[in-house]
């Protein structure tokens, strides 16, 4: 990872110096090494650029606002981030010609909360060696199985292929996509009431901080319906039993067929609500009902909800295996 970071930084420096781009979107560290967040760089502050095990954030959304400004931008995208990028291109939210995409190698990012749950505190830095994660902490070096501390979204990685890039840094590790729908299937197998309890329990934790919406690359409306008093569903806080459900259903509905399953919503949720399970239900259903579709795989294919066939299954057949 050190090596990749060095290469990335050199690449950024090169492109900035040559004037190919005039700014860079990447990650920077906060007060702690595990506190990585997106940031914009020029030659002046490029030394603050990092690419570590904690750079889980998907940078594509930041391009929407950035690409409206003058000049070309360099952005670093991990494999799963490239899907969001393509989706934004398809929706004309960003201009391809204004952006220089450097695909960057990723072998799964680390969830600091999971590390802490393992009793690993005071982390100064981490590195991956094979299946292990070696953590340098103020209490000395600690080693864990990486799979135990990876971000939820990395546990169901779509594969390590960049679907769009101008240049690649690091290797494109060939990897079978992991099963994404196991948990959804488990929920489907429950009774209605069990499911209701499960979601009531999860969603009642929602504090309507809107972090899921704000981080989501698909939730990028110029003006969100929840902020629009004319929409009749605008609301700021959960004031009743249904409010949080309404919010999350509508949010999922609005990104249905557009969600690339980047997992950012669950990553940023301060309450740890497994929001990706809602999005994935839509993805799983649409795959089963209308054929495999991966949002952001290309910039042409129509999303399932924006197309149709004469023989589509009927609405009441949603829970049958074959439809008609």
């Amino acid at each position, binding site marked *: 990872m050190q090596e990749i970071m060095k290469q990335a930084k050199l690449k950024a420096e090169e492109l900035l110096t040559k004037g190919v781009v005039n700014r860079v979107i990447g990650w920077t560290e906060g007060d702690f090494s595990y506190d990585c967040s997106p940031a914009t760089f020029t030659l002046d502050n490029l030394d603050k650029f990092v690419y570590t095990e904690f750079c889980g954030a998907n940078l594509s959304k930041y391009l929407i606002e950035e690409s409206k400004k003058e000049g070309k931008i360099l952005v670093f995208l991990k494999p799963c981030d490239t899907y969001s990028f393509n989706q934004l291109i398809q929706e004309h*939210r960003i201009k391809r010609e204004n952006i220089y995409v450097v695909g960057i190698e990723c072998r799964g990012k680390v969830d600091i909360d999971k590390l802490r749950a393992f009793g690993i505190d005071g982390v100064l830095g981490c590195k991956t060696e094979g299946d292990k994660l070696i953590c340098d902490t103020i209490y000395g070096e600690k080693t864990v199985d990486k799979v135990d501390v990876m971000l939820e979204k990395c546990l169901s990685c779509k594969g390590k292929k960049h679907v769009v890039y101008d240049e690649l840094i690091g290797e494109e590790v060939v990897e079978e996509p992991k099963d994404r729908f196991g948990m959804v299937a488990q929920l489907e197998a429950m009774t209605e009431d069990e499911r209701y309890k499960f979601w009531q329990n999860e969603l009642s934790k929602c504090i309507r901080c809107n972090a899921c919406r704000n981080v989501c690359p698909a939730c*990028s409306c*110029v003006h969100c*319906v929840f902020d629009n008093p*004319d929409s*009749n569903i605008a609301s700021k806080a959960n004031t009743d039993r249904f409010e949080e459900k309404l919010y999350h259903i509508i949010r999922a509905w*609005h990104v249905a067929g557009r969600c690339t399953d980047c997992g950012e919503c669950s990553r940023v949720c301060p309450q740890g609500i497994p929001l990706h399970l809602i999005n994935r239900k839509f993805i799983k259903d649409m795959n089963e009902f209308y054929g495999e579709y991966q949002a952001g795989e290309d910039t042409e294919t129509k999303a399932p909800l*924006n197309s149709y066939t004469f023989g589509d299954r009927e609405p009441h057949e949603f829970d049958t295996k074959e439809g008609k």
Partner: protein
Amino acid sequence: MKKIGVFVCWCGSNIAATVDVKAVVEACKKEPNVVFAEDYQYICSEIGQNKMADAIRDYKLDGVVICSCSPRMHEATFRKTAEKAGLNPYMIEVANIREQCSWIHKDIEEGTEKAIVLARTAIAKVLLNAPLQAGESKVTKRALVIGGGIAGIQSALDIADAGFEVDIVEKKPSIGGKMSQLDKTFPTLDCSACILTPKMVDVSAHEKINIFAYSEVEAVSGFVGNFTAKIRQKARYVDTAKCTGCRACMEKCPSKKSLNEFNAGLDTRPAIYIPFAQAVPNKATIDPNACIKLKTGKCGICSKVCTAGAIDYEQKDQIIEREYGAIVVATGYNIINLDKFNELGYSDCKDVITSLEFERLTNAAGPTKGHLICPSDGREPKKIVFVQCVGSRGLRPCDKQYCSKICCMYTAKHAMLLREKHPETEVYVFYIDVRTPGKNYDEFYRRAVEQYGVHYIKGQVGKVIEKDGHLEVQASDLLADEQLHIDADLVVLAAAIEADDTARKIGTMLTASMDTNDFFTEAHAKLKPVESPTAGIFLSGMCQGPKDIPDTVAQAGAAAVKVIGLLSKDTLKCNACVASPNENMCNGCSLCATVCPYGAITYVDKEFRIPGGVQVRRVSQVNEAICQGCGACTVACMSGAMDLKGFTNKEIMAEVESICK
């Protein structure tokens, strides 16, 4: 504060018997904003309408709710009255308390209660209604007809006769289409050329008709009343203004080996050619794939023999841009490729021919001057086998699922004509079903059997084997439960028809919907059979599905009437309830456009003032002349920027809330 008036209709006893109308009036009076409420026996009557108009004026009403029968019944009446009284017609809401209430509920208490809810819901909606103005768009008074076969010709003539300009675009060097290749026509057996040629001459002589032959439509933009088409006029290498059609060039051209398309490839033509004697325009065309001069630079004989000096080897394709108010699609058909049906021997055996080739072989203007011979060796056939449904009605990838419709009749025609001209020939027709719906059609087919002694055999041909110059036809005779082996001289295949290969391209260009067989879809199978769902596009002939000449001509005329109806208007009144985007909320994501069935949504980059400067954003625009108001886009839109006038999100939400109160 908006002032709302409510009228509750008795509809005689139709409503009043199960709904306490007085109670409804009282309940409405209690609703906020309602300044006036009254009941009357028949609001749709003249007196009722006058009462309504008076109330609108006297109380300066901003909106009116009428609790009465279904809006499908009298909404238009109420709107007219409102407009006369100075209220925007879209400020009217009808609460359906008859069909949805009094007629289906027997209990007066229950009926009244529901009627009050329905009235309240209508009040909630009308409070949010905005006055709407139906837009208008200009109509360009010229029609484009794509395809110059009998369908296109008929449509063009009818439109032009009504006094409107028409352009015909035909991809071949001459108009005339498939019909010009036919010999006789069923069920009257009159000569195809004799009835078509005068029409072709009419077209060329008509001052309102402009023929773009050897041309193709390259792009179409715009919408009903305002289309712009780009037409590519392919280089003929002949100046049509100068060419006199004398055909001296054709005689002297040394490159005579090109297959003659007009004779279905049964003979050859020179590289410079006029496809047939009655061609319109009667002008020569050089085939660049065969012309020695164009390929090698040497030759130039035609240029030397042309006394008119019409040959121009340097000619280039030209793009012409024209504006139209309406477009008629008449792209026609072709017969399928028979490569996948070679058990019938078409690819290897010269004496296995298609019905179209048979037409040319029996046509006096054809390659044999109408003398029917076997193409292999020129002998006169004595035994002829016709095979029906080749490629039609099947499910395999090589088959067409539909019935090609015309084959039964033309085969009966062929068989009959054969027996008439050559009584000594034996004629067999292998059929699955003989389908002859149509005036005088079955009588025609029966004549073939009964008067002309054509052998109709229920069964199919399974294999054709050529040996010693003859064809062994192996076939089933299902009624006799026999396998036949007929020693035939000629086998004629009724190949399935398919949409012309340019149809898909043109359909895409016009955003006119097509079925999986590339036939154009009509707006309604029964009630709008000549209109495409895309406004301003009309369908004529085979491009919409298999049909014979009488049906084609009828449809061509019908399409023309629709075009005339459209072109006779100076402006088009648009639907007022159309989609309308709020550009401040629009993401420019194109999701709305992907679901729009009419292609009514486009995008522009627009500047917006933001704090500290200007920002350019891509935003959607709805062409109100095209939008039909289905609302598909409003749901595809995530931000809620796209809304539907007359059925806005807020209005429907208000109705929902009112019902669920």
